[in-house]
């Protein structure tokens, strides 16, 4: 049968099918907007001067095909320290220097970046022992959802950090603890950066509304290892 071959169409049936299609559209839009569009739990914002750690957080963000080292501090706009990598992992942030393991066309390198200026102070082929260095941790917390309630516990102590009613597609993707263990930063599936006290004394507050994606690990200032 030719694709363009005309078919006899009964007008009444045709109008009926048009009406049925309109009903399907209305029902589908209604269902998807009601059940498919979910919102994350509402939380208060983190404001400058409030009770919050003074340390910054480093993360790797992506701009087009480049990996950028980005630093976030409470009360300041996110700052791109440098954008020159094809990819990388954060190893440590000590004394103003951020150590990264990067890879590019020249191979794998250990790169040391001065946080204040973005200057790369050293590049070296990773020594054998540095290959076992832990990269920035993904999981300072464990989040379990049961019956619509998500319980977030500190992975180290087991203390309940946050308990909240959530939609089924809400998750905590990445989390990291400060050096003194008092604070935990988390990125949820709405790409929000949240800050919560590790003792669970108050609900989390929203530090950054939209990080762009929720999977890149976080590294607190004063944590991790900067190889010699």
């Amino acid at each position, binding site marked *: 049968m030719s694709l363009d*071959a005309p078919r006899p169409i009964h007008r009444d049936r045709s109008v009926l*099918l048009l009406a049925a*299609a309109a009903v399907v*559209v209305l029902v589908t839009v209604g269902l998807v907007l009601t*059940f*498919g*569009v979910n919102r994350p739990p509402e939380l208060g914002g983190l404001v400058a001067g409030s009770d919050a750690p003074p340390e910054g957080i480093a993360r790797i963000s992506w701009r087009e095909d480049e990996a950028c080292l980005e630093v976030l501090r409470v009360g300041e706009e996110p700052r791109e320290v440098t954008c020159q990598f094809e990819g990388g992992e954060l190893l440590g942030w000590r004394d103003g220097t951020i150590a990264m393991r990067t890879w590019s066309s020249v191979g794998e390198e250990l790169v040391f970046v001065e946080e204040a200026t973005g200057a790369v102070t050293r590049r070296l082929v990773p020594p054998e022992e540095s290959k076992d260095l832990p990269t920035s941790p993904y999981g300072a917390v464990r989040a379990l959802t049961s019956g619509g309630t998500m319980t977030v516990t500190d992975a180290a102590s087991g203390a309940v950090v946050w308990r909240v009613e959530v939609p089924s597609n809400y998750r905590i993707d990445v989390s990291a603890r400060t050096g003194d263990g008092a604070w935990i930063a988390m990125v949820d599936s709405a790409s929000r950066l949240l800050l919560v006290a590790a003792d669970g004394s108050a609900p989390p507050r929203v530090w950054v509304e939209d990080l762009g994606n929720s999977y890149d690990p976080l590294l607190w200032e004063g944590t991790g290892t900067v190889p010699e």
Partner: protein
Amino acid sequence: MASQEIERRIEAWLAAGLLTAEQAARLRAFEADATGAPRGGRRALAAEAVGYVGAAFALGALALLLVDVWGGLTVPARIAVAALGTVLFLGAGAGVRRLAIPAMQRLTSVLWTGAVGGLGWTVGLVGYEVLDLFGEPLALLVSASMLAVAVPLYALRRRVLLQLAVLATLAAVATSSVLTLSPLPPPPLWVGAGIIGLGLTWLLLGIGGWLPPAVVAEATGAVLMLIGAQTMSADDPRWLGLALGVVIAAALVVVAVRTDTRHPLFIGAFALFVLTPQLVFELFEDTIGAPATLLVTGLLLVLLAVGLSRARRDVIAGAGHADATIRRTPGGEDA
């Protein structure tokens, strides 16, 4: 009437607006069949196919040249290149649209589909480079502008490619709208429900004759519904999406047998082979093990085949009975 006279009359009716280009093409084909005049047939189609392959090579070469110089172009120059390509496709399509030759009708459809793609490229560049948009808002802007152009072009030239362009851009608008509205990624269950809704809408409009060519609308609508069911099965409970998919596939096969049409049969049968094993594994694998699961799947499919062949016999027998009744009526000898 001599064939030259017929051709002269068709041209006159076409010029007077009494015939559309498609009607003129159909009249020519009908007259060629009736008079035994040569239509070109396979040779013309082969020549057309060779022409498209040549054009694809030429466009590929142009694209490679463009890739080389693209990095050195300023933003306005990049936008101008994309816009120029779009206008060329659109203008060329408008130019050949009036030619009442089937090959030119198909070429119009190809060129205008290219114009829809070119517009998406142009608007994407403007959105990203000038308006600083990215992610879902950029996708929404690009897909909405493509849809806004694809719909009127399809209204002018109701052919396969433009219909598919309308469907693809409509799906992209729906997806990017939901992603823009929803701060959380939508659950697969409701993404699948949305795809099923779009597919069912397309199918109903196709059956109703609102989206010619109807066969394409029905086939794409059916395929979308099955993709939607498979998408739903990525969410809990998994069996729900798979069971819905099996029901849709079985319904397509039944409709195909009852109406004696092929495309729902191919789509439905293929989907049954894909979805039924998944469903049986999901429901029974833990209790009866993999070999028994395969056995159950096979038996289910055999039962379905037997049921369908019986249904087919009933339809044929019913049609035969109706024919016999007509033949027995007075004056019904030639019916």
